[in-house]
């Protein structure tokens, strides 16, 4: 198979991945671009650990061929590591909304996509947005509180 180049925006920067087979976006991010915050959990689009944002929508990256994001804007959890940190990060730390933290990057990206389209979601809307994300450590209630806090902080800074 001949190598092809796929170019897309990652966290605001244009990046090109040279790939033989059409590998899943997850591995393009982790192995080719060194962005290891996006996690492998199942490879079946069933746990949400690999969730990233593509053109504003939360999608699982383990089952998405990298060619499908050519020319699109991809956001990964690393984009939240700003100075000062994104309100979702502060809120997750304030509420200790994790134990092992393995599920969190996917959850944070699903939450970010939600808050971008709905800045003051009801709890039921947060739950619906996160229902495809599994957490085995059982930090669900903390995560919900953290997302609510982040929403409040973001709404305040927008006003």
């Amino acid at each position, binding site marked *: 198979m001949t190598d092809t180049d796929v170019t897309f925006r990652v966290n605001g920067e244009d990046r090109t991945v040279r790939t*033989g*087979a059409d*590998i*899943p976006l997850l*591995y393009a991010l*982790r*192995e080719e671009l060194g962005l*290891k*915050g996006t*996690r*492998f*959990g*199942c*490879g*079946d689009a*069933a*746990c949400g*650990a690999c969730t990233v944002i593509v053109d504003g929508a939360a999608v699982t990256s383990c089952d998405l061929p990298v060619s499908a994001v050519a020319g699109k804007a991809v956001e990964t*959890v*690393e984009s*939240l*590591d700003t100075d000062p*940190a994104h309100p979702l*990060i502060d809120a*997750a*730390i304030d509420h*200790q909304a*994790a*134990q*092992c*933290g*393995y*599920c*969190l*990057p996917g959850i*944070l990206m699903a939450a970010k996509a939600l808050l971008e389209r709905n800045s003051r979601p009801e709890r039921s809307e947060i*739950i*619906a947005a*996160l*229902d495809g*994300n*599994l*957490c*085995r*450590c*059982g*930090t*669900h*209630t*903390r*995560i*919900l509180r953290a997302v609510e806090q982040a929403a409040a902080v973001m709404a305040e800074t927008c006003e």
Partner: protein
Amino acid sequence: MIAPKPPVPLTAAPLISNWIRVSPEGEITVLSGRVELGQGNASAICRMAADELGCVPEALAFEAGQTGLTPNEGFTAGSMSVSGGGQAVRWAASAFRNLLLKAASDRLGCETADLCLADGVILRDGEPTDLEFGTLAGDVDLDRPVTEWAAPLAAETAHSADTLRLDLKERLVGSPFVHDMERPGMLHGKPVHPPSMSAELQDLDLEALRARPGVVAVVRDGSFVGIVAETEVDAISAARWARGQARWVDRAQVPNDAIQAIGASREPADIVVQTGTVDEPAGRWFETTVSRPYLHHGSIGPSAAVAQWQEDDLSVWCHSQGVYQLRTALGMVFKIPEEGITVIHRPGSGCYGHNGADDAALDAALMARAVPGRPVKVVWSRRDEFQAAPMGPGMVTRCAATVDDDGKISSMRLEVNSAPHANRPSVNGTPNLRAAAYLERPMPPAPSTDIPIARGGGADRNAVPLYAIPNVEVSKRIVHALPYRSSSLRSLGAYTNVYAIETLMDEIALELGIDPIVFRLAHLHDERAKSVIEAVDDFAGSWRREPRGQGIGWGLGFARYKNTAGYCAVMARVEVDQEIRVTDIFATADIGEVISRDGALNQIEGGIIQSMSWTLKEAARLEGGQAAAENWLDYPILKFSEVPEVAVRLLERPDQPPLGCGEISQGPTAAALGNALRSALGVTVQDLPLTRDRVMQALF
């Protein structure tokens, strides 16, 4: 002093230098045998040291779980990180502090009583001197016994218990996991696991496999097959191809119903506790037989490891719970001296017991042997994680009680039948690593001897009721006859045994027309136990006023974990129509001195939610001799939309030693749900999980 007796880990690692290292610049590193598994223990242990040293936890470096460097504290298990390892660190830090103050008083020519430590500086009468950790480090000999110098500060003066997780941010936006490791020249490995422990590889075209894109090496040893490839994606697709091609034979005899076979087993049983006599039951007779299926650990990230051989030396990075025990097991498999093996802990996804971490380490080491000098990273597939990792064992517990004319329980008998809980690496003299059992020269696991009751028990954990009952008999039978691989899963036998005792307590109370809380309190002498139950009654408030039956129910579950660790009472509210919905959970716990308040709450809440998931939804799918689940659709766990409000309160006891909390809520939660369902529908479901089908079976 906080604890009258020196913490147990100081016996094997008695010197201050076993626990604390100081660089010439005065940087202090805390050494711990207790690894961070996602439960926040590293931050709690740092806090304990920092309090003694008068500094913030962030000022200390922390190293845990590296053979040859950190103390050997056995497995990070049993909810003993803070109560054992943390206490040892606290004592060592106290001893270090006293040596520093002594050295400072020598230099300053004053009494140590005039001195104290604050943020790395020695204060004299509250004023800074020019003496710091760094300037004094050279004066102090850390090769001194901890116990000669330790006098830990009292809990109230020591700290605020509001300990932040120091490692959290890195876990959110960084790449701290073993899955994320990079090393120069690293290759990617994938095992092709036999579908069951008894399956033998009959046919696989290794030459064709070697010719797959990106494949660097193929390893076959007995029924072990491993593929080493240039990239993760190449390794995945070669492994997929190989799995489609491989032919296995499995001649094992397998019962149709594993749980029934466990319940009916006639393998030898041991009586583990006998007080009084239960042979001539006097009074009314009550009994129940409960069961739980095999359960999967279900970590969100699958097991992973990196291994590298340099000549005859092996280095392994992995998320094992016991680096020294894994080293011993690897030494058995490769027949090399342990000194040539280094095992280094790296974070993995949440760990709830003996999962596939150690097995992945052996897989990686077997594959890395084919590419000397080059590191090989192995990340299991989701399917590997379900099918190859040890499961939590299936169990059947019979509980019978007699009640005398005064409405008091006069005897209780528990008979626990269980598949093995205790098959950790290198215990019982065999490696107990998956692949070891099917290599060319196989090393199958020795029969599990289970954990003695003096160390908390395994299958029989919490089978001895905490209630004051004059005649008690507890027996356990470890069932080895089944082909499935099982080992320790969070709380071991306590989950099932507490379910048995606590649902029977409710049955009896309701039959006698006594309030279940009053009934329990009447059978308790332990004041702390009583307080926890009274507190949850109070906390759940409205539960006494709400009408029961017709699909709404409340239920209580209580236990003191291992009868020696933390106390926990859980009250659950359920609504039942087409579905079983848990709407509210209230819990109270007494874990003695609280080191990290929010960390403890997080552990207890997480335990409740995980136990809810086990109790309402989970059962491993067994087909023939194999665990058959391939993905999350085959083994659903609790989702955001199914998680209720969970409110937890701690009854803090700063004057009491800290007790473990990570596993205390598993059993009480299951029992609270069973009893809530009983209160809603009038029947107790004895066979877990409490699915709609099981409820229907119990009703009709």
